[in-house]
């Protein structure tokens, strides 16, 4: 790191470096332009989102008084919590198994995880639709469980990609942990369960929490799978917006999006805080946040 500082000062006058800096600023403008536009247009008082008429908070009041919007956001949040819990539990155990119970099964499991990560979401979406309709049971209208079957469809559907990402994150964290701590606990006669709850779990908790929040945000963001498997009673926010795209976009949608953006940023800030406290560097945090482990 000490090398980087003189390098920066020495390169300062270089034309190529100024060009790169301008390029960097332009890329940031590009990345934030549509987001800034959405936030700005959430204060549009007009009836159509695209045509600006005046500044006001009408969009926000309308959004909070629109039952359909509120219901869809509620569905999104319930779907996100459920699928995040599912994905975190499944992925955490799988991650532990990969690191601590190595065997010939691991490459096969990695192949499956990789396949899930690279499959275009549209393919997952139609596969799930076909499958849900075919097997019925809890995924159909005759669902025996007293939970709306649309929600069950969303929980399962959203958990798949996230569970694969959680597996990689937890695995990466455990690979970096010193196994001798667990061995020491075993030598001191700690039972496996106690060894897990008192040594392993606290050490990997930051990664698990971050992975869980990441799953939550993936689910909140999910549009394609939701659009294929959703039902009238459990239709999430993204599907509501998508149907508005086909008819007419009202400023309320931008207002609610702005609120959800703030919520996501809050979650993101929380994750960064948790990971930083656990001693990760900025770049490691970024790698975790983008699902790269």
């Amino acid at each position, binding site marked *: 790191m000490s*090398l980087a*500082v003189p390098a920066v000062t020495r390169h300062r006058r270089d034309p*190529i470096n100024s060009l790169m*800096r301008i*390029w960097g600023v332009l*890329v940031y403008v*590009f*990345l934030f*332009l*549509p987001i800034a*536009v*959405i936030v700005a247009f959430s204060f549009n008082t007009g009836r159509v989102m*695209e*045509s600006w008429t005046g500044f006001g908070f009408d969009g926000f009041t309308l959004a909070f008084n629109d039952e359909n919007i509120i219901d869809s956001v509620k569905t999104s949040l319930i779907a996100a919590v459920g699928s995040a819990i599912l994905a975190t539990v499944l*992925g955490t155990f*799988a991650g*532990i*198994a990969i690191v601590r*119970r190595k*065997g010939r099964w691991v490459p096969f499991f990695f192949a*499956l995880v990789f*396949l899930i990560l*690279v*499959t*275009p*979401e*549209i393919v997952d979406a*139609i*596969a799930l*639709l*076909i*499958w849900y309709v*075919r097997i019925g049971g809890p995924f159909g209208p005759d669902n025996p469980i007293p939970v709306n079957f649309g929600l069950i469809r969303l929980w399962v559907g959203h958990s798949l990609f996230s*569970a694969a990402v959680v597996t990689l994150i937890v695995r990466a964290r455990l690979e970096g942990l010193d196994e001798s701590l667990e061995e020491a606990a*075993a030598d001191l*006669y700690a*039972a*496996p*369960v106690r060894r897990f709850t008192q040594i392993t779990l606290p050490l990997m908790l930051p990664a698990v929490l971050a992975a869980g929040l990441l799953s939550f*945000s993936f689910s*909140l*963001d999910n*549009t*394609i799978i939701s659009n*294929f498997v959703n039902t009238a009673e459990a239709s999430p926010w993204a599907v509501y917006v998508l149907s508005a*795209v086909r008819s007419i976009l009202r400023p309320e*949608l931008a207002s609610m*999006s702005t609120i*959800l*953006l703030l919520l*996501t940023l809050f979650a993101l800030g929380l994750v960064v805080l948790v990971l930083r406290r656990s001693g990760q*560097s*900025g*770049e490691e*945090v*970024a*790698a975790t*946040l*983008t699902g*790269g482990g």
Partner: protein
Amino acid sequence: MARAVSEAQSGARRIRAPGFALALPAWVWFIFFFLIPVGFIGYYSLGYKPSIFSSIATDRLSFDRYGDAFQPLFFKVFVGTLRISMVGTLLCLLIGFPFAYWLATRVSSRWKGILLGLCIVPFWTNFLIRTIGWRIILAPEGPFSNALNDIGLGLPIQLYTRAAVQLGVVYNYLPLMIFPLFVALERLDPALREASKDLGAGRFRTFRQVTLPLASPGIIAGLLLVFIPLTGDYITPLVLGGAKGNMVGKQIASEFLTANDWAQGSALAILLIVMILATVGVMALIGLGIRSILRARRRFAMPEVMTA
């Protein structure tokens, strides 16, 4: 104490038995809700649509749906998709590389974390909402269009065209290119570039012979991370494309959700996967070819340098 010991012993015995049991729930989950369902796409692609009111029948299996997929209507969509995804992936690399290089090598470590964090914010913002943001920017009667008209310029890109979809996909997938490039360039030891310079290599040569080869794993990861999901994109053409900017993903969706023809939709999905795999395979071969040619050339160039 004695109890604790016996507990530990019985526990030790218990823990040895399961093997990969901890991963068992994930195995079951992935197989039952991913592998088998995706397999059914293949099965359904051999079926047909029996009547207006039902979506699929598989009592008679044939490859007819694949034949139908090569009709001009569908074929044009495949060609258009491949064009959009290849141009889009390349543009992401051209935009992302100088940016990632700047971020990894020219920004002080104090700012690096913050600036990288800023790149993550769009990635965490709802994909659909971000795309709608572009729709506002490109709207023909929108404020951006009006402002540009006032100063005598028009919007360079019209909504509901292929160009609008092209812009949208480059925007949406750019972060996925930046992250792996940044990681690869960040790991690159600055001393290597210094050494190359000290040995008399110019800037361009250092870039071509030191930076680029060492960054190639990141470049390959970025190309794959962008190309694969981009080719299957469905939201961007839906929001920005209209009739002119169709893509395979959108066509599959309309077979399932509008035409209610699951067999045709499934066949298109299988062909989409085949197209992605084939393109990645061909590009990998071309890449390997270029690499071996470059290596061979360098080997010939070596003695000259030595004698000079």
